[in-house]
């Protein structure tokens, strides 16, 4: 019988190399862990090369006036950050829009996803079909989603306005994406539609993990559906909440694609968010230094908002 090389208890390894604890020459501490580190090397190289290095490079670029086209650049210190927070009016609009987007696309899809998961966790007819239907928007390419919703919102022949006119609400029909007062909310609705499937799926998985006997015990004790949901389901989903909220939160903070494809940040700059404004500056205005500063701000904001929240939830969950 061969001894497995992976998952081998430490004691066995010591015996195989002939050094029983305390009886012979021991390797230096760092060397003893070398093999373990060797396993990490491929991942560390990939992580360093594809994440840490670009991040550090972006950080460096954010202190320059690089135009993104030539190797020439000048060090400008914190000027790009000062510009973003003090002088750039569009940046303020973008931050506010991102806040609205984040609140809406975290809270609503999470709530709807939870409700759908609870409903579809019951033994109802066609539940597999409904699960697929509700999850389907999540697998569509976002550009496709943007196209679908742009047509739905079309001022003249879009389904949304047609429906409003059909039911007599003519005054409510409007150019949803062309009006700065409604454009962001119109995109938010598309965002909610596409982002509800994932929370539903995660909550469904979480619900499966809650032992059935807790529900039975609660029923025996006379608990109604609301009490069961509040005192059995919700506590049982604590770990899932952490996953769902953290994923949707980070996703919301770096929103780009739907807004880019549906409104291009417009009309005017009414629907700009930091990520689209970063794109405009870096690739349209050839201000890669400033664009990098916006990218760093997005990263810092994402970490600053998401990490404490996740830590609090984790603490509560444990």
């Amino acid at each position, binding site marked *: 019988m*061969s001894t*497995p*090389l*992976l998952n081998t208890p430490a004691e066995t390894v010591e015996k195989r190399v002939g050094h029983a604890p305390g009886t012979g020459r021991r390797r230096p501490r760092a060397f003893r862990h070398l*093999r373990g580190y*060797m*396993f990490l090397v*491929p*991942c560390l*190289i*990939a992580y360093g090369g594809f994440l840490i290095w670009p991040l550090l490079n972006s950080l460096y670029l954010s202190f320059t006036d690089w*135009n*993104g*086209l*030539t190797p020439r650049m000048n060090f400008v210190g914190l000027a790009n950050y000062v510009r973003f927070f003090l002088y750039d009016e*569009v940046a303020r609009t973008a931050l506010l829009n991102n806040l609205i987007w984040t609140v809406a696309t975290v809270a609503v899809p999470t709530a709807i996803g939870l409700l759908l998961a609870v409903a579809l966790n019951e033994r109802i007819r066609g539940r597999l079909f409904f699960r697929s239907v509700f999850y389907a928007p999540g697998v569509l390419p976002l550009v496709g989603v943007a196209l679908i919703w742009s047509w739905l*919102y*079309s*001022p*003249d022949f879009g389904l949304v306005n047609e429906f409003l006119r059909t039911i007599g609400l003519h005054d409510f029909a*409007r*150019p*949803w*994406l*062309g*009006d*700065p*007062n409604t*454009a962001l909310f119109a995109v938010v609705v598309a965002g909610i539609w596409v982002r509800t499937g994932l929370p539903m799926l995660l909550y469904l998985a979480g619900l499966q993990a809650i032992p059935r006997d807790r529900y039975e015990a609660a029923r025996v004790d006379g608990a109604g559906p609301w009490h069961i949901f509040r005192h059995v389901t919700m506590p049982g989903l604590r770990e899932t909440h952490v996953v769902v909220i953290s994923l949707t939160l980070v996703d919301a903070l770096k929103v780009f694609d739907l807004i880019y494809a549906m*409104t*291009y940040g*417009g*009309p*005017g*700059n*009414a629907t700009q968010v930091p990520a689209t404004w970063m794109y*405009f500056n870096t*690739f*349209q*205005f*050839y*201000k890669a230094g400033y664009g990098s500063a916006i990218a760093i701000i997005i990263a810092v904001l994402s970490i600053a908002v998401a990490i404490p929240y996740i830590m609090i939830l984790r603490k509560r969950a444990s």
Partner: protein
Amino acid sequence: MTGQLSRRGFLGGAAGALSLPFLSSCMSGAQSSGDSDLRVFMFLTGSDWTAFKGAAKAYQKDHRDHDMVLSHLGGGATVYLDKLRTQLAGGSAPDIFHDWGGELAAPFIRSKLVAPLDKYYEQYGWENILLSDAVQMCSMRGKRYGVPVALRGLGIVYRKDIFGEHGLGEATSYEELEDICETLHSAGIVPMAVGGSHAWHPMRLVQFLLEHTAGPSLHDDLLALRTSWKRPEVEECFALFKRWVDKGWLPNGFMGTTYDSALLQWFQGKAAMFPDSPTLEGDVRKQGIDAGVFVFPTDAKPPRFMSYVEQLMLPVTSAQHDVAAQFIDWYVRPQTQQKYYASGTATIKGIPEDESAWPLTYEWQKIKKSHESYLILDQAFDKELANSYFAIQAELANGSTTPKQAAADMQKAVESAAS
């Protein structure tokens, strides 16, 4: 086979997986094109692209030393320039690329990514065959960086069937144009189809109006930022634009729709006029639409039309400059242009005009002889200033600013760009 993963196997597999992207990128780079290929990247679409491909194929027949590798990307300046910029800055530039003029090409020139072509102008005598206006629009800091292949004029392309139905003719004054709009609007037809989600299409209308209110000389000064935008003529222009919106002469919600949606609306006969170039002719013909074209009547003296140039450029990094210049020389010769240029907006002197094949273009060529031209705004402004202008235009359209405030904001944007 034990089913257990050995340490060596794991590390080998991980190393292999890690090196795969590098290997594949090296291989794909090697396979993408040969060293002697002449790679051409264009933004032509539709009949123009078909015609260009035909020209390249014909050229290949007699020049077999270099394979021509053609690629193109539609979607307008935003999409095309994104890809072009990546190619130029990323070291995989094509040997010949297509670009617009003015500030759309200027960042590449300023960044020294484009080769000056003065040497080839002298060698091939291009000055003698190309329109001097067009060559001028491809020059910067006294050097010629591009070879103009289209000088597109922008006017009002209209549906003759709809105009005929309502007893309308081509407008010869701004007042007449407003009357036409009123008649069409009363008949339930959208007078002018524009799609503003990328803002540049309604910009054409605003610039027509600026030519009307400011006149040629002031208009040129405004575009060159030689004078303040905070002035009555600009306020009047913005007020007129608002009037077009409020009167319903533009499609409902046009700021949220695309150029393509607007064109579709015009193709479907829901709109009567479309601000564009006669280069639309290929598609108009395909749709079987009886169309005409006239210059937006601005009442300005001298009469002018809006124009922009398209050019072929060579990246500094290409090793095929001589071969590329040879192809360009063949392409811009009158006999080639006459045969292969689809929409007849060539920049070559003395091409015979073919009224039966390209009636719209023929009409426009006649207009060009009696009109001067002015540069389109988004080629006159750098992209950041153009974006500020677009934001002001959007605020005007939705009524969240007044014409007076918009003019003041525009001047503020100009000063901010200058600083």
